[in-house]
């Protein structure tokens, strides 16, 4: 029996897929990060068996009768075993309860349609009601073309839900992973109280090819990477996979709700 292998995009090394998965999907040769599925991400950061999924049965419908959308959704569901490009729920991280959303870049490139918008909105509403902090892992090509302007409006809808959560004095940590672009960058990815990023991730608004075509020149090395965003002041910190769970636990601990008397003092 031959085991499945994966190839590292950075160093070209081929390795056993199962072993890579067991080691946080970090290349043992060069330290490069392989993309993680949403479930792998949840396993990486949450305390064992604490994750409880919400709204997992919501599925997208082809409301605009867009060419090939049904087929693309079907393929994405088969490929990922998920119903949509985001998974939401509650969990504990280092013993601290939180609400969690994790996007999956494999599901139609993590694109945001109405169901992705609805699930994240509901999660923020739930977290506001239960007074929970929210941790969100983004990876997305942006708004989902196949649902037209309805997808675009999800950027506003989610932002509205985040604002209510924020006005209630609650914490939202966005963790940007590879790739986070387009409408997701221009909305909830950049609306965290704390914005963290995985090292080496592509993070930006406009696509690199579009920029190159517009300005007629090649983009500099490292353009729109996490390190670039940190340097330009658009994220608070970079968190590597090895420290991810611990750093998130620390941040949750540092923002634990104070007893009422102290909050008002």
């Amino acid at each position: 029996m031959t085991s499945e292998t994966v190839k590292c995009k950075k160093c070209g090394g081929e390795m056993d897929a199962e072993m890579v998965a067991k080691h946080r999907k970090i290349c043992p040769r060069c330290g490069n990060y392989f993309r993680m599925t949403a479930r792998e991400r949840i396993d990486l950061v949450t305390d064992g068996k604490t994750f409880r999924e919400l709204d997992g049965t919501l599925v997208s419908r082809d409301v605009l009768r867009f060419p090939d959308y049904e087929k693309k959704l079907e393929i994405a569901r088969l490929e990922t075993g998920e119903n949509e490009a985001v998974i939401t729920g509650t969990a504990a991280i280092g013993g601290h309860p939180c609400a969690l959303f994790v996007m999956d870049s494999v599901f139609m490139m993590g694109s945001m349609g109405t169901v992705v918008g609805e699930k994240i909105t509901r999660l923020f509403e739930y977290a506001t009601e239960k007074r929970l902090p929210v941790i969100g892992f983004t990876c997305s090509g942006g708004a989902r073309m196949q649902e037209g302007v309805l997808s675009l409006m999800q950027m506003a809808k989610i932002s509205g839900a985040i604002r209510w959560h924020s006005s209630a004095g609650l914490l939202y940590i966005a963790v940007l992973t590879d790739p986070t672009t387009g409408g997701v960058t221009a909305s909830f990815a950049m609306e965290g109280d704390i914005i963290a990023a995985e090292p080496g991730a592509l993070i930006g608004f406009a696509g690199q090819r579009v920029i190159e075509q517009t300005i007629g020149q090649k983009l500099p090395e490292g353009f729109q990477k996490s390190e670039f965003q940190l340097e330009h002041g658009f994220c608070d910190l970079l968190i590597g996979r090895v420290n991810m769970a611990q750093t998130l636990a620390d941040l949750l601990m540092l923002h634990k709700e104070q007893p009422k008397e102290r909050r008002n003092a």
Partner: protein
Amino acid sequence: MSAYDKVTLARASDRAMGSFYMEQILDHFVELHGDRRFGDDGAICGGVGILNGEPVTCITMKRGDSLEERMKRNFGCPSPEGYRKALRLMKQAEKFHRPVICFIGSPGAYCGIGAEERGQGQAIAENLLEMFGIRVPIITVVIGEGGSGGALALSVCDSMIMFDNAVYSVISPEGCASILWKDSSRAPEAAEVLRLTAGDLYSMGIADVILQEGYRTNEELAAELKALLIRELERLKKVSAPRLLASRYEKFRKIGG
């Protein structure tokens, strides 16, 4: 008229845009410049004027007339400092208890190295977040092309008025056609499937009022727009700030729910 006919009309270089309507409906308009952080974006123009006897803040995307002016204004594609200027003016409006009117007509947010370095995504995101908290009425008027996140950054509102030949889309029909069929010349087909006309947005509950253009002159349209804005502002003025913010959220909350 096909969807792409409307796209063509919305983009037409001689189409009267936000600045024309601001001139027509406002008295004593004073333009206010700059984002107080980096610069002054020519693709966004804003200021204060009198509408029906009361001060209002108006903000418009602006592409300019001559080629020279268009280049200066990046053909109406706003940079981060444009969105930040818009937000600054909205917060100023909130402080002085006057409503905000935003005019949309732009191919989209500017694509370039500088725009990314200065956080184009963050600037749009901040507007979306903050506009849900602005405690005065916001009305958005879509006159030309409403292109993607770059248009959305001025579209969080209590009432959206849309000209019937304006369009609003997640992606340009050309961009959509090249992704779908690797052929941007099939943009007219893409325009059809994207459902980007005023009628489409009205049926999806995004646009609240459609302004029929018919054969009317720009001056006649301006007069009707003025009457519409006065009517909408009268209605919104009566709503308390907490109620206004709750229903603003509700308006967007319903979309695709």
